[in-house]
């Protein structure tokens, strides 16, 4: 009888020491409301601490505690604490990202010379509707929409929320659209493919009223793309009177300059690090 009484006292004491408890669901997704179950009785204070939330509220121990969806938008570790008159108890739970539905699409560079091997990098960062990184592999569809050509697409699985491709720029200058899509997200970026360095830079001279008109042939790169207007072409004329240099931007595909030349002169041309032909001309009074 004595041992029975002792057992009863220990058991009842244990129940009173166990006090309140709090339980979270096993699977929680960002942006979804949940209910935490508690045990115990009486007035209690509930604390919720998460990656972007910290709140305190009065609850009844033993009842359910609803947590609104807007307090669970950020994926990560949360701590729920219930403090009643008999002490505090806590539980940790993890909120997983929702379904992949957004992309941050980084394309670099925004301008690239034609024919640059593996020169374009396109990186898609997979997110859910609440900007959480979706870490499990998800298929991202990359597409290339070149001007006057059929779109080409390929899928890449993301790794830790990142999916990427490297591309070689086309042989023809002009804008190319690069796209990436997943879920409802469809992002497009534009890469301007520009002519590479001038190739076979050539000049010709003709007499005009000021002396000589020195003019380049239409300036193209080695793939035949016109070098953009505004690109600087440097003309250098050397004669017995000294040297004349002038940096002229290409206008309508050619660069030209008037040079007064007296006597024999050599004219050379360059654009950036590319040099062209040299001309020997002879001017007179």
């Amino acid at each position, binding site marked *: 009888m004595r041992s029975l009484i002792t057992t009863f006292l220990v058991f009842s004491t244990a129940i009173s020491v166990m006090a309140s408890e709090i339980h979270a669901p096993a699977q929680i997704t960002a942006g979804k409301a949940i209910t935490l179950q508690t045990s115990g009785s009486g007035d209690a204070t509930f604390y919720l601490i998460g990656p972007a939330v910290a709140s305190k509220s009065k609850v009844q121990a033993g009842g359910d505690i609803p947590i609104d969806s807007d307090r669970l938008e950020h994926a990560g570790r949360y701590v729920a604490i219930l403090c009643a008159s008999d002490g505090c108890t806590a539980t940790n739970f993890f909120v997983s990202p929702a379904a992949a539905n957004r992309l941050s*699409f980084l394309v670099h560079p925004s301008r690239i010379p034609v024919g640059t091997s593996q020169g374009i990098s396109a990186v898609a960062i997979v997110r859910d509707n609440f900007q959480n990184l979706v870490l499990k592999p998800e298929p991202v569809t990359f597409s290339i929409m070149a001007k006057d050509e059929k779109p080409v697409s390929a899928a890449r699985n993301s790794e830790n929320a990142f999916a990427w491709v490297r591309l070689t720029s086309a042989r023809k200058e002009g804008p190319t659209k690069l796209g990436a899509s997943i879920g409802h997200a469809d992002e497009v970026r534009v890469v301007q493919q520009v002519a590479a360095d001038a190739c076979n830079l050539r000049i010709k001279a003709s007499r005009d009223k000021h002396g000589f008109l020195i003019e380049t042939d239409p300036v193209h790169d080695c793939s035949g793309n016109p070098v953009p207007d*505004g690109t*600087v072409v440097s003309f250098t004329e050397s004669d017995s009177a000294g040297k*004349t*240099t002038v940096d002229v*931007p290409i*206008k309508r595909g050619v660069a030209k*300059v008037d040079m007064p030349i007296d006597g024999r002169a050599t004219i050379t041309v360059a654009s950036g*690090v590319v040099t062209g032909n040299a001309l020997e001309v002879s001017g007179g009074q």
Partner: protein
Amino acid sequence: MNRLLPIILALVTLVLIILAWFQSGGVERRELQSASAPDKAVQLMFSQIKSHNYDAAYARLANRDDVDKTAFTREFEGSYGSLLTYASLESFDVSPLHTGDQESSVRVRLHYSTALGPLDDVRDLKVQKMGDAWKVFWPVNNGTKLPPQVIAVNYLRWDVIGRGAGDDWGVQNADTPQVRILSMNAIQRPDSVVLVGEVVNEDSVPAFVNVGATLLDAQGNEFAQESSFDKIAHKLLPKQVTPYRIDFPGMRMEKIKNVRMDVKALLVAASADPVIEVNQQKLETDPLGKKVLTGELTDEGGQVVDIPHVIAAYYDANGKVIWVSDGYVAQPLLPQVPVPFAVDLPPDIAKNVHSYHVVVNHYDRVAS
């Protein structure tokens, strides 16, 4: 006591007036008023120019009938926002070149203090004896001026629209331009270490470029840092090449183990206009015996260039950049009117110069 204070104040005022008179060169002017030598006449004239007394200076000219007073004043006050409009004549040195009974020649070296640093000008003047006094024969500027007309300019202009503050993260921006250092050469000068070289804008858009250098010692520690400041053409059009120079005053080459170069480029709005032609470039010796690169700048467009800035790179026989020098031109560039320039270079370097490349930078009140 009531009488003493006004007397003291009057004496102090008198002393201050006398001091101010001495300070402003009153004694010198007084002496020069009565001077009868050619160099004294020039000295007097420039003394009056220095104190902005252009009427009196103009009165000292022998050929007033040929020289317009406004044009004479503009030679020292500047025009069109040129460098001289942001300058004052700080001092001058006069030295006789040739002295005759009726005609002499005098060299005057003018030292201006400008917003961009000191500026020197050398003028050789003829002085004529007229009666008892010597008068300065001022060279007549018959520079051609383009008649009023409309010049159609249709060079490219680049404007930039960047990413907005409200755009989402990851939205594409216009990339900064690709620029590259083509060469770098470290030179030990008597009082400094100088880094010279060239930079090219490899992109198809304009770039605002600046080159910096960090010196490292044997332990790999950084111990000095400088930038090219104004010894570079900052705004580079596509495929344009500019020289740069970075000075480390008081530095010795032995202390330097390594140099870390850093070129920064920004995408900027720019215009391909104005095109400035650099004519008749020659390496020669100036009247003061200095080695200089001379030439003429001609603005091919229709826009006035307020402050031209000439930067020259000098190469040895192997095509290596061995020096970079620069200089501001005091006069503005009016459309199609040639303006002379001269930039100096050290004589020990001049003897190794095989070729050179000049670029012209410009600063305007109205940004292009």
